[in-house]
């Protein structure tokens, strides 16, 4: 904003352009900038860099609102869902790595019984990280794998069971019903284990991510989002609308294809990156 010496309409347009190009979405952007105009008047902001600061804080506030610190002491079953190719299986490998490194016992469930070599792919991750995996064969019933995985998790006393699922489009109602069934089975069998659902979203996705979040949330109640491929040039701004409209927190970000390329989501660094 160094080229602006005063706050005028051009500056607001520049902010709009930055947000739209970051995939924040045109309507969300217009609402955010309207709110900013109001606030700038109320607080009598005169300097462009103060406006910049105010705006960033406004966005950080949206992304961090209602974030409670997690009690990760209870044994957990994490069900990972999302559309095709978003990065579910890879993210599972990364979560398994960090959890194992923290000294906890991890088990994987090969719930993608549909896609070619999906079970093989998860098995490679299992052996890379050094964790066991419960699998049937390709074509098996996904809910049956989930059932077996939960039984094994309970009897082995694992701290974290991560269940992979096949990629699916939120518009495929029969596949969304299958996902509901898998969650029902997991929840019914969970016993003392807590059940959480993680939605994996690709940062290169545009406004369709909002539909994805809505429909996956309707089907299985999403507890958190993992935003992948932020090591690319896409900004993932669509999560702002998702947080605002659905209240779902972004918990993790993927920044590469290796086991260590997983970071906790931090609103400040995310917004800083968005403006660069």
């Amino acid at each position, binding site marked *: 904003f160094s080229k602006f010496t005063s706050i005028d309409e051009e500056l607001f347009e520049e902010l709009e352009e930055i947000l739209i190009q970051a995939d924040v979405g045109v309507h969300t952007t217009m609402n955010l900038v309207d709110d900013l105009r109001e606030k700038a008047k109320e607080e009598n902001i005169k300097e462009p860099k103060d406006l910049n600061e105010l705006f960033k804080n406004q966005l950080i506030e949206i992304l961090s609102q209602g974030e409670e610190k997690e009690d990760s002491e209870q044994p957990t079953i994490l069900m990972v869902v999302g559309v095709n190719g978003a990065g579910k299986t890879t993210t599972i490998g990364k979560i398994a790595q960090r959890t194992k490194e923290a000294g906890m016992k991890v088990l994987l469930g090969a719930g993608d019984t549909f896609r070619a070599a999906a079970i093989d792919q998860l098995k490679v991750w299992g052996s890379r990280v050094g964790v066991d995996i419960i699998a049937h064969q390709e074509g098996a019933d996904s809910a049956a794998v989930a059932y077996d995985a939960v039984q094994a998790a309970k009897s082995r006393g694992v701290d974290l069971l991560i269940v992979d699922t096949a990629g699916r489009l939120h518009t495929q109602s029969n596949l969304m019903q299958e996902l509901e069934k898998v969650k029902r089975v997991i929840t019914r069998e969970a016993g003392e284990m807590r059940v959480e659902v993680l939605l994996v979203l690709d940062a290169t996705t545009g406004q369709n991510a909002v*539909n994805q979040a809505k429909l996956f949330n309707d089907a299985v109640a999403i507890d958190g989002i993992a935003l992948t491929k932020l090591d690319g040039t896409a900004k993932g701004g669509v999560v702002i609308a998702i947080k605002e409209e659905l209240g779902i927190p972004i918990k993790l970000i993927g920044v590469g294809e290796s086991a260590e390329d997983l970071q906790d989501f931090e609103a400040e660094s995310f917004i800083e990156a968005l403006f660069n």
Partner: protein
Amino acid sequence: GLADKLQGAFDKLKGKGKLSEKDVKGALREVKLALLEADVNFKVVKKFVKKIEERAVGHEVLTSLTPAQQVIKIVNEELTELMGGTQSKITFASNPPTIIMMAGLQGAGKTTTVGKLAKLLKSQGKNPLLVAADIYRPAAIKQLQVLGEKVEQPVFTMGDKQDPVDIAKAAISHAESNGNDVVIIDTAGRLHIDEALMDELKNVKKAVKPHEILLVVDSMTGQDAVNVAENFDQALGVDGVVLTKLDGDARGGAALSISSVTGKPIKFGGFGEKLEDLREFHPDRMASRILG
């Protein structure tokens, strides 16, 4: 959709008598919003709306009894033309084998598209060889082998310890001695900003000189589509694009972004996960999908 919004915009102007250029330019804001909602890149939208403006402030709209419909007609025509004139065909080499190389970001649908393309070409009487040149992704080779079995076409692999350049070269020789008239090379997903991996792709291209380089892009891609398309095209010279996951409900504005910045045709659309789910790309249908 856009038709109703434009109608609304023009209805508001009805009482004023004759339409002015300023009136029409104001109504075009609805076109800009529709395209941005559809994920068309911001700069591409600006350029496109400017082009529409030149026609929309002309005689055909200003004197029309149904200006909204005239504008929609112009927008549809311009969109279709930008994305169209397309050859939904593979250019076959006069001396086989025809070499096709897939490229694109991680998870776009390359490997699946290789399988689909093999099935399509086989149905057209070709004998394609699938080449497993993704040595990085866990079980990528296995994934292609499973697809190859389904299509009943051979898969060439040298495992995951050999350089993709050497794999590609060996695959071509194998095709020549085994009567495969088409070679389809699957490559690892990569970021357009990953220099080492983009160089790898350039080296594969240099080594085997593909007749067709197909950029595979996820149809739900947002603003970033421009960066991806531009970079891959500048690095490799893309011959065509495959837009995947069109069976979803993404508006698909990436299609316009890609056509606008590369001028390269979108040759096929992926409409599902099965190997028969590859179809010709129809720019006119894409245009109305984008407009919503």
